[in-house]
């Protein structure tokens, strides 16, 4: 059996950054414990011999389903509809926080 994965607070902080999830120091410690526990259940999979099995990502067997490259006007949003749920807009645009340095 493969070794147990110990999820440390550093790993939790790293994945919080990767997934853009804001968490407190206390949450970090708790999540590290929880993830270690959950992965113990998952580590159980190491008992299964999969040396001759391919991974599957889907079950229907459908592949590369295409539609014709045509504009479907009835599905288009007006600018008003597209902006309706945004909290911040400016002159018909979505507003975002600045991400590049000034």
């Amino acid at each position, binding site marked *: 059996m493969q070794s147990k994965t110990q999820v440390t607070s550093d790993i939790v902080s790293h994945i919080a950054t990767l997934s853009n999830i804001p*968490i407190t120091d206390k949450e970090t410690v708790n*999540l590290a414990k929880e993830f270690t526990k959950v992965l113990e259940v998952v580590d159980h999979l190491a008992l299964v011999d999969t040396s001759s099995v*391919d991974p599957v990502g889907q079950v229907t067997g459908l592949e590369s389903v295409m539609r014709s490259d045509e504009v479907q006007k009835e599905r288009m949003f007006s600018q008003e509809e597209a902006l309706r*749920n945004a909290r911040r807009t400016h002159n018909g645009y979505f507003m975002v926080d600045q991400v590049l340095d000034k």
Partner: protein
Amino acid sequence: MLNKLTLVETIKKIKAKEFSHKELYLAIEKQIQESNKTFNIYLSLDKQALQKAGKLLDTPLAGIPIAVKDNFLTKELPTTAASSVLKGFMSPYESTVTKKLMQSGGVVIGKTNMDAWAHGSSTETSDFGRTLNPRNIKYLPGGSSGGSSAAIAANMCTAAVGSETAGSIRQPASWCGVVGLKPTYGRVSRFGVVSMASSTDSPGPIGKTVEDVSILFEQIAGHDDLDATTPKKEVPQVTKTIRQGVKGMRIGICYTDHPDLIDKKVTKQILEAGKLFEKYGAQVTIVPVTEKLEKGKILKHDFSIGVYTVVQRSEVSSNLARYDGIRYGQNREYFGVEAKRRIMLGTFTLSKGYADKYYIKAQQVRNLYLQNFEQLFEGYDLLISPTTPSYAEPLGASIGNPMFGELEDMLLEPTSISGLPGISVPCYKDEQTNLYLGMNIVASWWQEEKMIQAAHLYESETPWNSWRIYV
């Protein structure tokens, strides 16, 4: 009283003008007014519902009120997936399922509570408060389609829809003593359903009887150009074959010999069901459990917990990346603790250095389950098992337990990760607690008609369906 009628009876009687839409909607609205505050089932309600229904008498669904889980996008009611992130969100487009329901003459009377983002099996992780089980308010309704199942149990609608990724229709149906049908993956379009685990998400009906869910199934199933995972397969006319019974069918009983289940009431009920099917001409055998792939045996369900945990979290981390609070919704600070857990764990299982150990390994074991079921369905028409190991859990049971859902749904996960269809029907009621047990009947891919035949026969020949007296 009119709110207690089944879908079948309601359509028949309203078309025969035995009562009006006004009388029906008044009965349902009265029930909602009396109990929604206690049960916390509806997150939003359509005040124009009756007005819409009046014009729909000559349609297949005749203007009956349908409760819809709050992860289906609707243009006229808010869609929140029970998360603060989407509070107040008004979708600019309609989901295929609700569109089809409306085209068939159904009226979306309201949107029902659920585990936030469908992450859970209790409806306790909703950001808008938990739903109580109408059969006994000290207990959970199950989830994630807990609101839709509770709406049926409380007679607050005539029919309902939910969605299942691994148990989210059948488990709450079982706990609330109602009928839940999870179609084959790809049978019902996911277009306009808030994405959770895209490779297993399956919308489906929840109702009072097997015939009720069969009617809705026919209306919502079928290929959709807007969802590339729906094959162009003909939808079986399940309401026409529903009374054909189980004569000649080969039925396998699964998981009853598992150490955790061996002494349980539900196990006894499943074995009794086997005898009933035998009496009606089916060939019934016990499918032995195995730890390795073996012909004629079923792979033990324990591994599927790990597979589902990894696959679901991984797909969640990708699907929930879109909620950035820019185009709609609030920012990522508004995610609840369960969503944060799942997004982060999924990010971890897909991250460099861990993806092979977790994600790829899980998808390999998933393939073993697929191969196992392909082989099993060569020898069986149906597989039956308990829907959940036991009765509804008490309020609070899910709190602080990140694996709550996985353990409650462990009997459903092997078939869910394989995309198989299943139906849960009530198979016992405890007179003391008024809580129910459920039987899960699974058919091979695209053969929903067979499980419906068996479920209908069982429902007709046993006393467990609480709406029998109204039929």
